[in-house]
């Protein structure tokens, strides 16, 4: 069972790495990879990361990535993977703001600031689970069903001990998600300022 868990974790890391490579290709070369080509690239790069290549490496590339990044949270992973779906829409800014606020308050406390450790709540606090469910309900009421699905899958993965961690936090949040949320908020402000500046130029009184 544990061996299977390790293989699944490596498969997840390989897929996540492949998605990142496709995303980087699009960003660097300023191209949009056709929908039909995405699965092919995903399979190609996924296999490249998953299988041991030999040479000077003792392990598959995904194992080296996993050594540094650990396992991504289910929320991060599904958000990342969903970027390749044809129906993918941008995530609501309110969700990013919420993630950024949670991350900015959670990590300092979890890493030793004071005697209260919010991370400990993730081992089996009913209050914390209710809080997470309430957050998912708000996502649904705000018409972001994808968020409901992702959080529900994360909770179910935790109950089935899908990853090595027994802590619900590790299925919901990771530092990369926090950094992504903060980066997306900053980028959003930057774009809005640029839009305002451009509209001011176009409609400036003669």
């Amino acid at each position, binding site marked *: 069972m544990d061996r299977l868990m390790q293989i699944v974790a*490596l498969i997840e890391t390989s897929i996540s790495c492949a998605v990142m490579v496709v995303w980087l290709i699009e960003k660097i070369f300023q191209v949009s990879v056709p929908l039909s080509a995405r699965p092919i690239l995903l399979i190609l790069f996924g296999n490249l990361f998953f299988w041991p290549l030999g040479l000077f490496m003792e392990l598959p590339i995904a194992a080296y990535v*996993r050594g540094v990044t650990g396992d991504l949270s289910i929320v991060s992973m599904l958000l990342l993977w969903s970027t390749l779906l044809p129906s993918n829409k941008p995530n609501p800014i309110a969700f990013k703001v919420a993630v950024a606020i949670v991350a900015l308050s959670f990590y300092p406390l979890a*890493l030793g*600031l004071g005697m209260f450790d919010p991370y400990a709540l993730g081992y*089996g606090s009913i209050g914390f689970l209710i809080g997470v*469910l309430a957050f998912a309900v708000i996502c649904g009421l705000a018409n972001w069903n994808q968020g*409901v699905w992702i959080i529900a899958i994360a909770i179910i993965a935790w*109950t089935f001990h899908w*990853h090595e961690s*027994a802590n619900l936090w590790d299925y919901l949040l990771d530092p990369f998600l926090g950094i992504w949320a903060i980066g997306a908020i900053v980028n959003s402000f930057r774009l809005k300022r640029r839009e305002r500046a451009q509209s001011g130029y176009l409609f400036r009184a003669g």
Partner: protein
Amino acid sequence: MSRVIAFCFLLLAAVLGFLYIDSRPAWTPFTVATVAVDEEEQAQSSPVKKSSLINKLTIAHPQSDWLPDTGAASVHAASLISLKDGAIRAFWFAGSREGASDVVINSAVYDSKSGTWSAPTVVMDRLTAEKGLSRYIAKLGNPVPSRSADGRLQLFFVTVSIGGWAGSSISTISSDDDGTTWDRPHRLITSPLINLSTLVKSPAIQFADSRLGLPAYHEWIGRFGEFLRIEANQVIDKRRMSSGRSAIQPIVFTDGADRAAAYFRQARSGSAPKQIPVSETHNAGQTWQTIGDLEIANPNSAIAALTLSNGMRLLVLNNLEAGRHRLVLLMADPSDKAKQWQVVQVLEDDEALSDEQRREFSYPYLITGDGSDAHLVYTWDRKKIRHMHFGSAWLAQLQWQLKDQKKEGEQ
């Protein structure tokens, strides 16, 4: 419609979540060791009997030897555990230097009857660890053995994938045959930040439900102690023992089913007191409060602790504010409510040597073989691991001397 389906799925997740939480084990008290009052102990109460007993005893001084040489240039972080047949198994890491990729975790068995060590074996190396854990591992360190509820030997050890020791995580392996063979390693997830920076140094204690309480610590952004509740190969809960950047490597003395005290290696900067920080719990480790310092000097070095079956407590540490060139044994009488620690034996002392000539005596680790004796291992100048055995008669003699001193002080 899609929203309704999503909410139905969330409801399913909620039900599973609540069922999962309901199935989680409740926090239980510590296992309380019964204090054995043996004949020698009873003899103490009568001065006549005591003196005659001392005369009868041929008190052996502590025996000292070395853990087997593996040929490695650098050795460190030795630990011990009693085996089912009464022997003692030692673990330590060895390699070309601390943190090198060739570092392996070695083990050897001490036969108490013959007083000899077996040939060393390799319990874990970097390649075995990374294949078992399915991730890159750069180096290994700090092996800490424990006895799990089902009688298996469990070894916790530190692995680092990137950076220095601050990037550590804890992994564990188990053995059905007291350390001859081991299963594949498992990773403990203890930190939300890429599982970075949790280390282990001190022995675990047992809860009444046979689960383990493993004192661990962070050593990166914060330097603080954590109490991990372990079930088999996973952390099922954890509690903070201290906060900030000043206390690592906790060791725990239990004072009953719910009470315990944790002594730390101080890691303070600047002119802050170089003494042993202490935390205590009154609810079996669910919450801890820092209660100030034990007034014993500590130069940011590990300490070892042990409670014997008669309640006598031992500490081994460097009682210096700087340097690790002196190692002492301290004792506290269980009947002394103030638990005053007294240095009863200087084990190593290079005080008379110049700074360049002084050697490092560090990372002590204490266990008892039969409840009344004590085995100590510690790093000797980073080149060897020294083993000392303190016999029960010798420790009892020290205990009597301690009581006599206390009585004289009171008079």
